[in-house]
């Protein structure tokens, strides 16, 4: 705990003591959520009951939504909770109902290649963190350049209080058009793959 306090103090040198404990509390919450996330993810590997895996995946989404709130991303948290924990879970459950309830045991001998891929990829990422700007640094290029620009310009350009909405719908509105088309594509795909008539929702199984 003292280490965390030290860190918090280092991050915000000349702030009153109240501030430091506040930061320490938020760091503690972050660590707690991260631990839970890791526990959830790891237990998903071994579980063969797919219903349970789907539930864990929903829990994972909820936890990450909580983490997003801790990191100030309220819009993302909202969406992740609605989509990841809600819609995705319903979809996966209906998928499981139509496919299989349990996973077959996995062949131990074939774990080598996946492990290799995972370690190389993870290694590359850890390697990159060595030169990475520190977490939460307002001076980091990621936070100081275009991101800060949006915060500065939104009141003048768009005048919408929620900067995320302003960026989403106006500055980067074309991305959002693309996103809408992606959703449309997914709906169309389900229609093409599972529907029995184009204008129907697919009643009664196969074609």
């Amino acid at each position, binding site marked *: 705990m003292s280490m965390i306090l030290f860190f918090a103090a280092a991050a915000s040198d000349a702030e009153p003591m109240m501030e430091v404990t506040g930061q320490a509390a938020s760091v503690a919450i972050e660590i707690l959520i991260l631990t839970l996330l890791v526990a959830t993810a790891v237990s998903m590997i071994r579980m063969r009951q797919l219903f349970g895996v789907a539930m864990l995946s929903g829990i994972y989404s909820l936890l990450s939504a909580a983490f997003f709130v801790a990191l100030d991303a*309220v*819009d993302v*948290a*909202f*969406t992740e909770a*609605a*989509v990841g924990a*809600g*819609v995705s879970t*319903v*979809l996966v459950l*209906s*998928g499981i*109902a*139509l496919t*299989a*309830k*349990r996973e*077959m*045991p996995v062949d131990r001998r074939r774990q080598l290649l996946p492990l290799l891929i995972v370690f190389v990829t993870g290694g590359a990422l850890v390697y990159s963190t060595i030169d990475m700007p520190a977490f939460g640094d307002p001076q980091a290029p990621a936070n100081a350049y275009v991101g800060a620009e949006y915060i500065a310009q939104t009141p003048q*350009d*768009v*005048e*919408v*209080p*929620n900067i*995320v*909405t*302003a960026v*989403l*719908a*106006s500055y980067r*509105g*074309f991305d*959002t*058009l693309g*996103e*809408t*088309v992606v*959703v*449309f594509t*997914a*709906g*169309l795909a*389900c*229609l093409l*793959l*599972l*529907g*029995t008539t*184009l*204008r*129907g*929702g*697919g*009643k*009664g*199984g196969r074609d």
Partner: protein
Amino acid sequence: MGHLILRVTIKTLFAPIILFALYVQFHGDYGPGGGFQAGVILASAFILHALGFGLDRCQRVIPPSWLPVGMALGVLIYAGTGVYTLLFGGNFLDYDVIQPDSHHHAGQHIGIIAVELGVGLAVAATMLQIYYAFAGREPEPMDDSW
């Protein structure tokens, strides 16, 4: 289908969820939320209803044939806003063209509301469409012998 308590709960929740979806849809400028979240919530109200009362009853309220139309219209509303601005001399999706003389960027506001509506409609229709597609399929007997 469904337990009594479940049905009562769903019946009570149905209207507030839809209301909440509308709130999220139109309040996205000020607080968290927007078209996408609203669409998901709206669709989830109907999915919940279908879970409690059966797919048939839900499909009587929202026939499956409406959904592709809703999906397409949603995209068209969004893209149409862009085309509108294009035709009126601006760049694609340049909302300032909608109300060029406004001092407080009314064009931006109208544009954002329009595209968010498009997103909301497209997402709600698509989510329901996907759910219909899955729920309409008959599960087969399965072997879980392993």
